Each structure stands twice: as C-alpha cells, then as structure tokens.
C-alpha cells in the first residue's frame, strides 16, 4: 500500500496484524445505485481497496444503433440514464442536428430549455433522495419523490410517458407542449420553492448528515480533472466548468439570453458566489457551509446539486416567459428515414450527472455507421477506487452516492 519510509505521513504502523477480508458488495444491493458490483478489500472496518465491476446492465445499445435510423435510436438514449432521460434525448438530438447542420427555431430552443431543466430538477431530486436513503434517512426520499411525481405528471401530459420519454428528437420535439402546460408548470414551481428549504433542513444542515458526509471522500481539483469527472462532481471540487457556459457554441447558444449562475465554490475561499436570485426570501435559501466541510468532499457535491436545482427553477421561469412570447414552429422532427451525410459529429451536453457526449459517424445512408455515447457516470465512477482507500465501510455508500452514478448510463 504505502512505502515504508517512516517520515512519510502516509505510513501507519500497527502493532497487531489482522486478516484482510474480501467482500463483495452487490450487484444486488440496496445502496449501490443500480447493478454495480464493488469488490472491497477490508481489514475489519477499514477499506483498503475498492474495485468496481461493471457490465451487468450492458444492453448493446451502441451496436444496435448501427442498425437503426437516427430517430429510431432515440428510445435507446432514454434507457441509458433513465432518471434524466430528457437530457439524454437532448444530447442525441443535438448531435444529429449538428451532423445535419440543422438549425432549430426559437420556440423549439426555449421548449428544450424548459424540458431539460425540468429533467435536471427531477434527476437531482432522485439523487438527493437516494443519497439520504443510503445514509439511513428515509423521509427526504419520499418528499423528493412527491415533487418528482408532479414533474412526471407534467411530462406525461407533454409526451405520454413518465420515465422513458423519447420526447426531444432530432429536429425538435415530437409534439408541442399542450395548452395550459406552462401554467401548470408555473404552479408547480411556485409550490416547489416552498419545499426546497424543507429538504435543506432535513439533509443539508442536519448535523448527523453533515458528520456523515463532510470531510469524506475529498477529491482535489487536479484529481477530478485527471480522472475526467464532470458535472456536480467536478464543480464540487471547486473547478469552474459548466458546459452550458463553456461548451460548444451549438450548445451554449441554446442558453443564450438566459441569466443563471454556475454553482461552483471559489477554491481559495471555499465560499460559493453570492446569488442575486431570491426565491424564498429567508435565510434558509442558501444554508451556511458547515465547519467540517472541505471543498471536494461529499457534502459539497451534494450541496452543488441542491443549489443547481434552484438555478434550474430560475431558468425554467425565464424559459416559460420566452416560450410564451414566441410563436411558430416548435421544432418538427426530421424525417424518420433521413439520410445522414458521410461525416462525423461529436457533441457534449451538460446532463445532470455530468458531461454526456454523443458521437455519430454517418456514411450517406439513413443508418449511421457508428454510434457512441460517452457516459458521464462512467468517468465519475472511476474515481471511486482512489477515494475509497483507507475509509470506513460505512463511508462507501456515502461516497458512491455522492458521485450519483446510474448504471444504465455506464453500461449502456
């Protein structure tokens, strides 16, 4: 494990030698998020090594993409990150539009912002709920899912499905939002703003939650970048990088004209930038950072997600106004059998779990030559092994939960 230099602070000498245990956590396990198998090498309660084994949910989506047209492959993206399916659909739609050099009408752009940010809220509610569940707090899970139910009801009205939407397709969306949908959405947002402080009280500022997550799994900025972590995992370590600001032009122009903050702490001070968005009007909006929290630990990753939800609410409000102000084509989908030019295109979007990239190579036919999805959770999961060295067994759900992985996306 470590070198035997006595001066090196990483060396710990023990008087008594105890035996190591090789423990298998999963693939059926309530707290690994999906079918993940973690092989732990532990010495009693202290874990010395973690090796994730993947592939239990592999469904050959990419190979199947070599036999389907662009619009036919949209349902397969749904099933990758099934908790944020709208954002997966968006990524695929954008890359096909990039390949075809197709420009979306204004109304369609605003519709996509509404839908993808609602998907982001839904996904973060699951992340927050299941994280509390991993740590033994059963109630915020149900509160989060209560709100998520309302979002799913709205989605069901829009596209007919609650989990695997296939709504955002290359060219726009399959249908326009129904009449009155934006009013219901506004109603939901107004009511949702009251719930967020409840969740903060139950989890973010709860002293037991803080003692379980603060200072655990600290990841330096350099380590996060080296392992290719993206999304809240990266921003939780203080690296200021969000594809909605810093991504490709084709993606950032979707968010053109919108005002929102990127949630990332300043690495030197450890403080989050002041936001001028007041959504509830009291001190519970932005809870204080606890004393024990270190930038890059599980608590900060969780906190980034909680604050991103607030920014998504802000974005949706602006998007609804802009959507109702524009009229016209919402973005009719492309033809079912649309010939793809003999080029390649790669597009990364900011999905709730990180940077989700799609790569497509056309060859003149309507069926692409190669389809590839770059999964955000895959790279986020790879950081488990170095983070979990020398921790206690009970910290593993805390760390894996804070990385917020979905196996559907990792295994495809």
């Amino acid at each position, binding site marked *: 494990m470590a070198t035997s230099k006595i001066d090196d602070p990483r060396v*710990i000498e023990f008087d008594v030698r105890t035996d190591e245990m090789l423990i298998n956590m999963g693939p059926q396990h309530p707290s690994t998020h999906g079918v993940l198998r973690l092989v732990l090498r532990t010495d009693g309660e202290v874990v010395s090594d973690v090796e994730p084994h993947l592939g239990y949910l592999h469904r050959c989506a990419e190979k199947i993409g070599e036999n389907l047209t662009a619009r036919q492959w949209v349902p397969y993206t749904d099933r990758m990150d099934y908790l944020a399916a709208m954002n997966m659909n968006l990524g695929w739609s954008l890359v096909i539009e990039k390949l075809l050099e197709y420009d979306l009408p204004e109304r369609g752009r605003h519709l996509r912002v509404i839908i993808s940010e609602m998907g982001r809220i839904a996904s973060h509610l699951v992340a927050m709920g299941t994280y509390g569940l991993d740590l033994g707090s059963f109630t915020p899970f149900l509160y989060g899912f209560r709100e998520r139910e309302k979002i799913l009801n709205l989605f069901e009205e829009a596209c007919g499905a609650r989990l695997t939407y296939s709504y955002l397709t290359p060219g726009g969306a399959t249908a326009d939002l129904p009449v009155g949908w934006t009013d219901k959405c506004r109603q939901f947002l107004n009511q949702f703003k009251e719930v967020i402080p409840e969740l903060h009280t139950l989890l973010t500022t709860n002293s037991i939650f803080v003692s379980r997550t603060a200072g655990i799994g600290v990841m330096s900025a350099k380590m996060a970048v080296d392992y290719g972590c993206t999304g809240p995992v990266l921003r939780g370590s203080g690296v200021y990088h969000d594809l909605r*600001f810093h991504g490709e032009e084709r993606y950032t122009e979707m968010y053109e004209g919108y005002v929102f903050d990127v949630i990332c702490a300043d690495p030197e001070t450890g403080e989050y930038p002041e936001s001028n968005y007041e959504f509830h009007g009291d001190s519970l909006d932005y809870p204080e950072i606890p004393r024990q929290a270190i930038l890059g630990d599980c608590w900060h990753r969780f906190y980034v997600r909680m604050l991103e939800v607030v920014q998504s609410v802000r974005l949706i409000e602006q998007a609804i106004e802009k959507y109702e102000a524009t009229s016209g084509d919402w973005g009719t989908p492309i033809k079912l059998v649309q010939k793809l030019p003999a080029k390649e295109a790669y597009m990364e979007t900011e999905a709730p779990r990180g940077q989700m990239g799609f790569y497509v190579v056309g060859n003149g036919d309507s069926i692409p030559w190669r389809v590839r999805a770059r999964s955000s959770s895959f790279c986020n999961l790879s950081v488990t092994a170095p983070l979990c060295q020398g921790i206690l067994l009970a910290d593993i759900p805390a760390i894996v939960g804070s990385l917020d992985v979905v196996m559907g996306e990792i295994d495809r």
Partner: protein
Amino acid sequence: MDLLAVAWPYWHQFFFIIFATIAIGFGFGVLLSKNVVRMAFYLVLSLGSTAGLFFLAGAEFVGAMQLMIYVGGTLVLLIFGVMLTAQKDFINMDTHTQDWILATIVGGSLLMVLLFGAFGAEDWRTPQDINDAHVSATKEATPLGLALTGIRVDTLGESTDAVADGKSGYLMPFIIVSFHLLVVLIGAAYMARTKKLSHATDDKSSRAKLMLFKMEHEEEPLEEAKYVVTHKGKSALNPLDPNDEN
C-alpha cells in the same frame, strides 16, 4: 405475590432441581462439546442458571450482579473473542485421553477440597433462621453498600455475640479490587492502542489533508496557469475549452 416462597419446600426444591440441572448439565456441555462457540454459549446458559440459584436463595442483588457482570460482561467478551478468532483449529476440538485424565485429577481434587470446606462449615443457616433473627436486614442494596464500606448491618440481630463480633466489613477487599480493576483498565487501554505517527489519520480533516498531500506528493506540482479560477465566466480548464481564445 411472592412465587419463590421459601416457606414451601416443594416449590423451592422443584426450582432448585431445575436450575441445578441446567447449570450442571450445560457445564458438562461445555466439557463435552467440540465446537468452541457452542461451548461459550453453553457456559452462558450455565452461568445464567447459577444466577437463578442466587435468586432462589433470595440474594437478588448478587443474582442480578451475576447476570450483569458475569454473563453480560465477561461472557460477552468471551464469545466475542471466540467468535472472531475461531479458525480451523478450534472449530472442532478433540480432547485427548491424557487431557481427560489430568483434568479429572485436578478438577476432582478441587471438588473434594470444596466439598470438605463446604460441609465442614459450622455455621450453616437456612433462610428460615435468618427470618427468625431478632433484627435482620433485608437483602437490599443499602446493607451491602454499608458492608463494603466496613459497617456490617446485617449482623445486628445475631443471637450469638461471638458470631456478631467476628464479622468484619469488606472495606479492605473492596479497595484492593478497585485498584486491581484500575490497573487492568489502564493496561487494556495501553495494549489496545495503535501505534501511529504524529500525523494521525483519525479525524476527518486530517484524513482529507493526507489525501490531498498524497495527490500532490506523487505527481509533479500543480501548474498554476492551468487551473486559474476566473469567475468572470471563463472556464477554469482553459486548455481544454475549445471556445476559449486564451
């Protein structure tokens, strides 16, 4: 509603037989069993019935103390140790014949000594005699506490002056045992400590700092230009940002 009324010899004997049988039977179980963990469990049952015997004799405090200290403390420790360290050698323990012989000799002689000592005592008193005493202290905690500090109040009603005078308090053994326990505690704490260097990794913040040190120590130092935070909207990962002109 006192069930174990000593005025009813049948009842008393009935329960005495039950408890004694369990104690002796499971004691034999400890001897004859081959599995170490089962041996420990049989010992639990055996000592539990000994506590029952104490309750039967009306010594409720001692019985509860037997349960709490012997069964609930010592045997938990024993079972803990046995359970965690029971490897191949000890799952099936076979006792050789010579061990049986040696054990019978040693144990048997100890049994003889105890029996002679027990039956040779002159002062056998049944609980009946205690009740007939002029003044008797009940078996509450206060007389025991007073006895431990040297004042024997349970012998106030003794008819024979010689017997009353001859009983001294238990202060000295109490102090000796207390010191003994203190020494044991200190010794256990000393032995159980893990020798660590000054950069202890117990608490979370130093563990995290160690983590960071690990990262920084193994690779080359951080290049400042790569990871500057600008908060003016520019990405911190400048070289990786395709749209950035810098």
